[in-house]
Structure formats: structure tokens, C-alpha cells
């Protein structure tokens, strides 16, 4: 998956890591997979193989590697519309199943977050919930002690809950699916031992077996606009600096008092595809008057240079730039602070605008 997707996913991983996961009750016996459930999974496997070898399937799976999370979310929600899944949908309508929803999800390993995998999925109502609702979800899987070693697979699920109710904590253990398949089965429970559902995962490196997993599922699309997607996590690079502070020498006169509503963006090692532009703070702003110092403490991983652009958030889409800064490794010495002036002058007429930043290099040649 692309850098941006993984960095967006890291926000959800962070949300999970902050949670106090319960100590789940662990049932001794595992449920038997019914014949009808087995038929569903067997047909799902066939449909997936046909789809992934089709022109449309190959195109989507190739493009998926470079999608950001919202684009991938939209694409996953349309997979079941392809003709290869018609028979599967027919079976879901005709067979007697205890499940209330069926899901398809793209499973992936986050390359730089060890022991964590994700599933970006789409669930539809079946049985009594047929046609009632659907949901798009993101599951974070915590699988300590297992090296997934694979990038992308697919996960199908039969769930006891309706699509909108799939969110939350689950504890899972491996279960035999009962038919010849290059896939792994997992039965999932709530913290109170309630059976949540059964999944089949194909091709995500899980076929070597696993003992236990924990997961947390986020229902997407109910969390406001652009939820948890502003990039925050930074993959490590060779060097590490801190933008210790930003000083308002003189604010811009924006007609809204004598304060500027300041935020800045930063980008390491040039622009171009796959290079992430970060915002600090990721939401909101920090108000500054003349001579105010914002000790923002924003750390940045970089190889050779960092570009910083400071904005006055005036509440419109065209926020005003009040400073641009170009930081190069060659200008910095370890553990010393350097003051940077804006590379461009944003003053005009009587509007005298000036901001400076203080930057300290705190680690060098960290990654060989």
C-alpha cells in the first residue's frame, strides 16, 4: 500500500493503542461451521479468484496499491457489484444462514507498523437484515508474535450483527473451515464471549497459522468529514529535527484584529508523488500577536531538507501564506538551534509581515 494510506491507517492504530483492551473471556469450544456457511465461503473463494484474474479486478488491485484511504474505501464498497460475485449474492439470498451481515474486505499489512494488520471492508445486510443497511469499516488487527510477511489479501466475513453494528472490540482464534482452501478461518468473540462472526482470509500470509488475535473495528462514514485522516505519523528517515518554536515578529493585518490564526505545513525531501504534506497542528490553529512565541515542538524526520509554509487561517479556502522556510541538513549542526527567516517577503504596503522559526537538529544518520 502507498505511504499515504499507511500513514492514514496509523491514526487508527494510534486510536486502538490508546484503548484499554478488555481481558476477554476465551471460550474453550469453537463453533462448528455450518454447511451453508461453508458453501458461502467456498463460493466466495471462487468468486474472488475469478474477480482477481479479471480485467476489472486486476486493474483495481493494481491501482489499490497507490490509493489513499478514502479512495480505497470507495473502491472496496463496489467490488461486490462485479459479475463474478452474482452467484455468491444469490446464495446469500437463498441459503438459510444465522448471520445478519456478510462482508468483503481488503486485508493488508502495514509495512512499518510491526504486528499490525488492517482490513478495509464493506458489509451488507443478509437474512432478516437483507437490504436494510450496509456499512464501510476499517478493522485494526493486533497479532503480536506473528510475521505476516504478505501485503494484500481478501477477507470474507459472516457476522451475527447488522452491518452498522460491526464496530468495536473482538477477540479471535483460528478455526477450521472444513474444506480445502488456501485460506485461514477465524472465529471472533466479543469481550463477554458472545460469538460475533467467522472470517475467511485468503492470501494475506495467515495460512501459516496463528493462535489469537485482537481487533478493533471502526465503522467509517459516521465520524464527520475527513475523520482521523490528517497525516500525523511519520516514517523514520535518516535525520531528525525539531521545529522548536515559531515567532511572530509582526503579524499580517488581515482585517480581523491584530492576531493571526497560525498553522504551518511541512514536507520532507521535496514534493512529488508519495511525499506526504503534514499540517501542524493537524486541525485548528494557534492565535499569535506581535512578539508571541509558539513553542510548537514539532519534530520532523527527513533526509536532506524540509520545506515549511506558515499560514494565517482566515476561515476561507485561500488561507494567506505569511512565511516560507527552507531547512537544509547542511545548515544544521547537531544539538544547536538555528533561526530561519522567511525565504520570501510577504509584506505589502503598510502590512509588515514577519515570522521566524527556530530549528534544532537532534539526531543524524539514524537509519543506515
Amino acid at each position, binding site marked *: 500500500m502507498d505511504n499515504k494510506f499507511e500513514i492514514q491507517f*496509523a*491514526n487508527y*492504530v*494510534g*486510536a486502538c*493503542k*490508546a*484503548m*484499554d483492551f478488555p481481558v476477554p473471556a476465551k471460550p474453550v469450544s469453537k463453533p462448528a461451521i455450518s454447511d451453508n456457511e461453508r458453501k458461502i465461503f467456498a463460493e466466495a473463494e471462487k468468486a474472488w479468484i475469478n474477480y482477481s484474474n479479471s480485467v476489472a479486478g486486476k486493474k483495481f488491485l493494481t491501482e489499490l496499491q497507490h490509493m489513499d484511504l478514502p479512495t480505497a474505501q470507495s473502491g472496496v464498497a463496489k467490488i461486490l457489484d462485479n459479475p463474478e460475485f452474482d452467484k455468491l449474492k444469490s446464495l446469500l439470498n437463498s441459503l438459510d444462514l444465522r448471520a445478519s451481515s456478510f462482508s468483503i474486505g481488503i486485508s493488508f499489512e502495514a509495512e512499518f*507498523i510491526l504486528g499490525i494488520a488492517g482490513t478495509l471492508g464493506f458489509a451488507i445486510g443478509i437474512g432478516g437484515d437483507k437490504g436494510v443497511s450496509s456499512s464501510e469499516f476499517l478493522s485494526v488487527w493486533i497479532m503480536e508474535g506473528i510475521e505476516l510477511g504478505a501485503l494484500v489479501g481478501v477477507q470474507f466475513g459472516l457476522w451475527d450483527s447488522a452491518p452498522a453494528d460491526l464496530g468495536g472490540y473482538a477477540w479471535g482464534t483460528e478455526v477450521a473451515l472444513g474444506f480445502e482452501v488456501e485460506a485461514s478461518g477465524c472465529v471472533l468473540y466479543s469481550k463477554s464471549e458472545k460469538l460475533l462472526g467467522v472470517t475467511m482470509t485468503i492470501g494475506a500470509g495467515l495460512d501459516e497459522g496463528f493462535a489469537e488475535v485482537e481487533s478493533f473495528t471502526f465503522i467509517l462514514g*459516521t*465520524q*464527520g*468529514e*475527513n*475523520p*482521523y485522516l*490528517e497525516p*500525523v*505519523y*511519520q516514517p*523514520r528517515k535518516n535525520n*531528525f529535527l*525539531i521545529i*522548536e518554536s515559531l515567532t511572530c515578529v509582526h503579524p499580517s493585518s488581515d482585517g480581523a484584529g491584530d*492576531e493571526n490564526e497560525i498553522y504551518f505545513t511541512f514536507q520532507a525531501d521535496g514534493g512529488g508523488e508519495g511525499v506526504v504534506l503534514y499540517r501542524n*497542528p*493537524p*486541525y*485548528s*490553529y*494557534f*492565535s*499569535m*500577536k506581535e512578539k*508571541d512565541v509558539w*513553542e*510548537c*515542538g*514539532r*519534530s*520532523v*524526520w527527513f533526509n536532506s531538507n524540509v520545506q515549511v509554509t506558515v499560514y494565517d487561517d482566515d476561515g476561507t479556502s485561500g488561507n494567506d501564506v505569511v512565511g516560507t522556510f527552507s531547512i537544509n541538513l547542511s545548515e544544521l549542526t547537531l544539538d544547536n538551534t538555528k533561526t530561519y527567516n522567511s525565504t520570501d517577503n510577504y509584506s505589502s504596503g503598510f502590512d509588515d509581515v514577519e515570522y521566524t522559526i527556530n530549528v534544532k537538529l*537532534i*539526531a543524524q544518520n539514524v537509519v543506515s
Partner: protein
Amino acid sequence: MSKQHSIRIKSIYCGGTSGDKGTSSDELYLVCQSDAGIPVRVPAGFNKSYSMQKGKTWELDLVLGFDYEVLVTLWDHDLPFDPNTANYLQSHDFVAGSGSGSTKPLKNLDGAEYTINFTYID
């Protein structure tokens, strides 16, 4: 992978809240990011926050590990599940060898004023 350094945040004192000249409440939560890594929210959970008024102290026992620094950002949470509506209050960057004690009051122009009490562990 264990971190080289750690601090313990013991409490956060509110000397003023944002808005209404520091007299209203802030629904305070923290985002802690070690070495620009995975951001961790405290308290855990999307709807969770700690209601702060002037003079109130939030008692914590929060240990944060880091190799180079850990940036602790204070937010005032408005709408659950939507960080777009959260208000940035202030932040403090803890680095190795910072000693123990209290940060200087972290202020903003809306009246917020918070002091973090912490112990440098190693």
C-alpha cells in the same frame, strides 16, 4: 522495541480555560506522539475527555517512552468522533534529560493556561 527514555506525566493543572476569558470549561484530551510515531490519545476512546475548569487538576499516571522526544498536545474536544472540530490549546515537547518538575504555564490567547507536572524517569 523498548524506548531509551521515559517520563511520567503526573497531573495537569488548569490555570484558565479557552473561551469566555478563561472561565468556561475545556473538554481536555491529549495526543502524545513519541519520535513522530503513532499518535496516542489520552484518555482512550473517541468520546472521552476530562472536563477542566480554572483551578482544577487532572491527576494522571501516564508513562511515555521515547528515543528523542515526545510531543504532548492539549486539545479541547467539542464534537465526539470529529477531530476537525477540536480546538488546539497548546503543546509541550519533552526531550531527554529534561529533568522533573512542571512545565511553564502553556497559554493561548483564548485564555487557556495549563501546567504539566511530570517526572523524568530515565
